[in-house]
């Protein structure tokens, strides 16, 4: 068995519309190792959530995987049936979304929801499953879980609810957790508690985590490696340290400069001119070329591609853009 938990190869997601086919993801390749947190960062519409949904088999029709492969610990999962995929979700892959209430049923006690999920994916009996649920609640930091296990979701605060969702995602000891903006709806003092929890789980259980977020600060403090997405493609991939401190893609560089810091003042934040293209107007060649100060003829005609680490930029790849 290898240590690669998730491998996505050349993934392409399309949305057929009345006016033509929109390409939402184009040539996305990434992998996550056991015990590793991969951050997937980008601005709204960059395709980061779409990547997570495609992996979870949750693309909203008519969206569909039109190319590429998704492998989970050596098993191909993008070709599984809807039924088979339901078992993988909640079983081998856990999901955490921005709004905890999308994962929790408001009508059922959290304990019952945990027990049901545990029993669905393991052979534990009722009593054992309840003991396991208690243990999980304790592990994710719910104080006095024996008093809380029979409460309903609305009786928990936002931060505690997100902890319950994490417990739910952990029920079947998943190999991979896809967490889409898990801290975005939470207060800053609670955000740090949740990211610390994710890191701890990943370290202690060896779970691979795909952390999708727009917040570079969260990535910088939580992830091991990061993929920066732009217009449905990966613009840059590398260790957090490299991407944050030595960004090589002009988009990443601009993005880093546009973020105000808690330490030190700048008179002006760096600005990237223009805005990200809509899916129906992605420019030829490098999708970033109209906004890029270095763009040359090659950038306007040929798509720069990376396989694994690096920057999808002709300047970074070839040292020239002509």
């Amino acid at each position, binding site marked *: 068995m290898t240590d690669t938990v998730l491998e996505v190869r050349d993934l392409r997601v399309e949305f057929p519309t009345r006016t033509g086919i929109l390409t939402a993801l184009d040539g996305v390749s990434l992998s996550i190792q056991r015990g590793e947190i991969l951050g997937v960062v980008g601005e*709204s519409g960059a395709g980061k959530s779409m990547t997570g949904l495609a992996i979870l088999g949750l693309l909203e029709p008519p969206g569909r995987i039109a190319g590429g492969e998704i492998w989970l610990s050596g098993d191909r999962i993008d070709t599984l049936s809807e039924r088979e995929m339901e078992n993988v979700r909640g079983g081998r892959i856990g999901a955490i979304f921005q709004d905890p209430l999308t994962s929790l049923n408001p009508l059922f006690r959290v304990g019952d929801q945990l027990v049901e999920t545990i029993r669905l994916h393991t052979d534990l009996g009722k009593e054992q499953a309840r003991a396991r649920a208690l243990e999980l609640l304790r592990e994710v930091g719910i104080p006095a879980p024996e008093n809380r296990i029979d409460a309903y979701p609305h009786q928990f605060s936002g931060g505690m609810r997100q902890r319950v969702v994490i417990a739910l995602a952990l029920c079947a000891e998943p190999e991979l957790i896809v967490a889409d903006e898990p801290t975005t709806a939470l*207060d800053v003092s609670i955000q*740090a*508690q949740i990211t610390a929890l994710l890191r701890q789980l990943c370290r202690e259980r060896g779970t691979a985590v795909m952390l999708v977020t*727009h917040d570079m600060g969260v990535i910088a*403090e939580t992830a091991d490696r990061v993929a920066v997405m732009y217009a449905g493609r990966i613009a840059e991939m590398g260790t957090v340290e490299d991407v*944050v401190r030595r960004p090589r893609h002009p988009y990443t560089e601009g993005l880093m400069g546009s*973020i105000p810091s*808690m330490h030190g*003042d700048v008179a002006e934040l760096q600005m990237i001119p223009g805005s990200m293209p809509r899916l129906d107007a992605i420019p030829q060649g490098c999708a970033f070329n109209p906004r890029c100060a270095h763009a040359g003829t090659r950038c306007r005609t040929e798509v720069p591609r990376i396989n694994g680490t690096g920057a999808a930029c002709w300047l970074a790849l070839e040292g020239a853009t002509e």
Partner: protein
Amino acid sequence: MNRTDAILEAVALERRFDVSAPWLNRVIERKPRQTLRAVDGVDFQIRRGQTLAIVGESGCGKSTIAKLVTGLYEPSGGAIQFHGDPNRMQMIFQDPYASLNPRWRVGRIIAEPLRTLRPETSAVDLGARVDELLRTVGLSPSDASKYPHAFSGGQRQRISIARALAGDPEFLVCDEPTSALDVSVQAQVLNLMKQLQRDFGLTYLFISHDLSVVRHMADEIAVMYLGRIVEIQPKADLFERPLHPYTRMLLETIPDLKVPNRDRKPMGGEVPSPIAPPKGCSFHPRCPLAFDRCMSERPVRNADVHQGRVACFAAEETRK
């Protein structure tokens, strides 16, 4: 601060909300009336041409202050004194969806304040101004003919910023103006707001939950917790020498891109319910410095302690 410097002053400002259950439930379940003190005795002044930022976590009362300042709410106690031209106070709201009329084209939405304030403006000048404003906020003049629903949340917020700027304001109340925007768009808007402030001597009341944004924008920063200002200081002092334990914990908790710290210890506990805030200092259940006095008595900002910049008994003990 000299009184005449201040364009706006809040004095012992209070806003309470009645959040009781309906009358019948109260009678049947024998529940008392419940009052929520959203803003609970707040004092501040804003100097002309400067930016006062209010920062704090969700529900601490920031938006309520914005609504009190702009007159959308009446104070339940205390007062607001505005020494500027009331026609030139504008507000940018937190929620870009609720604040734009869905049946109006964007051009009309943006032109509206201008048309009201200066009805003599010609259609050509109005159009040119709308084009200019759209460009300033990163949209295109062709967007003037579209309806708000054609835009993303971020783009709608830019439209409301353009509308606020159209009225040629002197005082802007900005409630989370960039919270809905992507960081690269946020940078464009923050830079723009700073430039407008320089060019036209604007005064901002700038509300945000994001301390790094606040650091970038503010001259002075007020930190709120459960309806009260626990600390208020010039920006540089606040970041160099935070006085309140809550401020210190916030500064230590927030992840930072440029100086990441993976061994950060998150702040424990949660913000308590504002309906039944803890007795004494409402921060005491989470405070590492709390001692017996904090559980019974409420700390206030005291001019003898750090020039009235902090409401904390521990800070009083170490006063300078």
